[in-house]
């Protein structure tokens, strides 16, 4: 009998630990994310995606902007996965590179703009929560994640463009 109750306790214990983690996330992460997402979604509603589209069409001819500002705007305003539709603004030989830049930014953006890829928050949030538990601030991490993200997508875009050109010859 004692044996059975021990096993039962151990079994329940597995899920008590899970429940505590879950509760921590719900109260610690969700309220801020909700308010931030409502705000950003409203701003996007007021600006309107049409205006962003018009602006983005103009900047595709500059290599640096094509793999930095364009994917960042596409991610912020159209979010995942509609952002890839901005690929139609770039030339055929740049499409793969634009896709790569855009998709590679879909996690670095979540530190500052969780609405842009709300379904995949935990790449960043998972690690950031751990850092927070140490009593450290995560603001710097989010900003640096964003900046390094921009640098990385620029490199990926340019390199992908070169490889694509070599392959399609």
């Amino acid at each position, binding site marked *: 009998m004692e044996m059975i109750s021990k096993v039962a306790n151990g079994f329940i214990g*597995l899920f*008590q*630990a*899970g429940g505590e*983690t879950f509760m921590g*996330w*719900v109260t610690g992460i*969700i309220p801020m*994310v*909700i308010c931030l*997402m*409502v705000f950003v*979604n*409203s701003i996007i*509603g007021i600006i*309107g995606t*049409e205006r962003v589209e018009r602006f983005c069409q103009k900047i595709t001819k500059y290599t640096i902007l094509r793999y930095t500002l364009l994917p960042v705007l596409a991610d912020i305003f159209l979010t995942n*996965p*509609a952002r*890839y*539709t901005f*690929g*139609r603004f770039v030339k*055929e030989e740049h*499409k*793969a*590179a634009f*896709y*790569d830049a*855009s*998709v*590679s930014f879909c*996690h670095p953006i979540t530190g500052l703009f969780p609405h842009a890829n*709300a*379904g995949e*928050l*935990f*790449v*960043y949030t*998972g*690690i*950031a*929560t*751990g*850092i927070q538990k*140490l009593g*450290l601030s995560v603001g*710097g*991490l989010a900003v*640096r*994640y964003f900046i*390094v993200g921009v*640098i*990385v997508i620029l*490199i*990926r875009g340019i*390199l992908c463009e070169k*490889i*694509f050109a070599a*392959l399609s010859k």
Partner: protein
Amino acid sequence: MYKTITVKAGSNGWGGPLILTPTEICNKVLSVTGGGIHPLAQKIADMTGAEAVDGFKTNLPDEEVLVAVVDCGGTARCGVYPKKGIYTINIEPVGKAGPLAKYITPEIYVSAVTEKDVYESDYTGAAAGEPASKTEAEISRPKQTLKENTAKVSEEKKENIITKIGKAVGHFVNIFFQAGRDTIEIVLGTILPFMAFTATLLGIISASGLGNVIAKTISPICSTLPGMVVIAFICGIPILSPVLGPGAVIAQVVGTLLGAEFALGHIPPQYALPALFAIDAQVGCDFVPVGLSLGEADPETIEYGVPAVLFERMITGPLAVLIAFAFSIGMY
């Protein structure tokens, strides 16, 4: 004499496109927009050859209504007409919402529509077809009538200034309300379920002692720069990366597990930034063909684009870790 038109969703809109053709019986455009005939309803009537009717003044039998134009913030009207099986155009950016949400389907409902979103038939995707503003009727209309119309419109404007302010405020509030609704939907539909699943997994791992095993094997690898470069390289191998990619589930679970290790002090915090890139070298590698076709790429572009992205990741995956490591200097 009746013409077919296509109405698509506007910016931030939902549903549609609707293809509307009036018939001898069904030929009224019902405008239910706080009194008066909305310009959009008038435009649709002009283009199709149907008649615009003010829904606040006239009551019509349902079978005569070709389409209802409403300005509903997501409480009732937007669902009333779909429930009756009547095509509904909402000028507010409202999706499937309100107590009658279950009747609102993309086949019968379209929202955030402006006059620019109405096209003459032959709708073929993005923005094919001539925008409504260029219809022949408008161009050939005598100048005098135009002037009369303008006079009429400006008169109405003066009368309805309070209504206008009210509508503008309402529109603004609706945008915020819809933003809230979208947010809660994604929290309930995606974020909470993911949290539930990862929390359960994490609970089992930590309470069963499996966590200690992970701490002893993975943590040492993740607390050195070469270890992380190797992880990024492995994630970026072209055969593995498409398998590791879908939904970023693996990256998210690994991120959460590593987060727990950071919290316990098994990995020093200055490795947080490189770790974010190390576990994510495969991001989107599963999605290349879909993402490219969303960008309207040719089949040939997709054929060469997939290997271009996959091979390039083997190089940029580890490189991203190194850049991130350099940028971590001075943090924590």
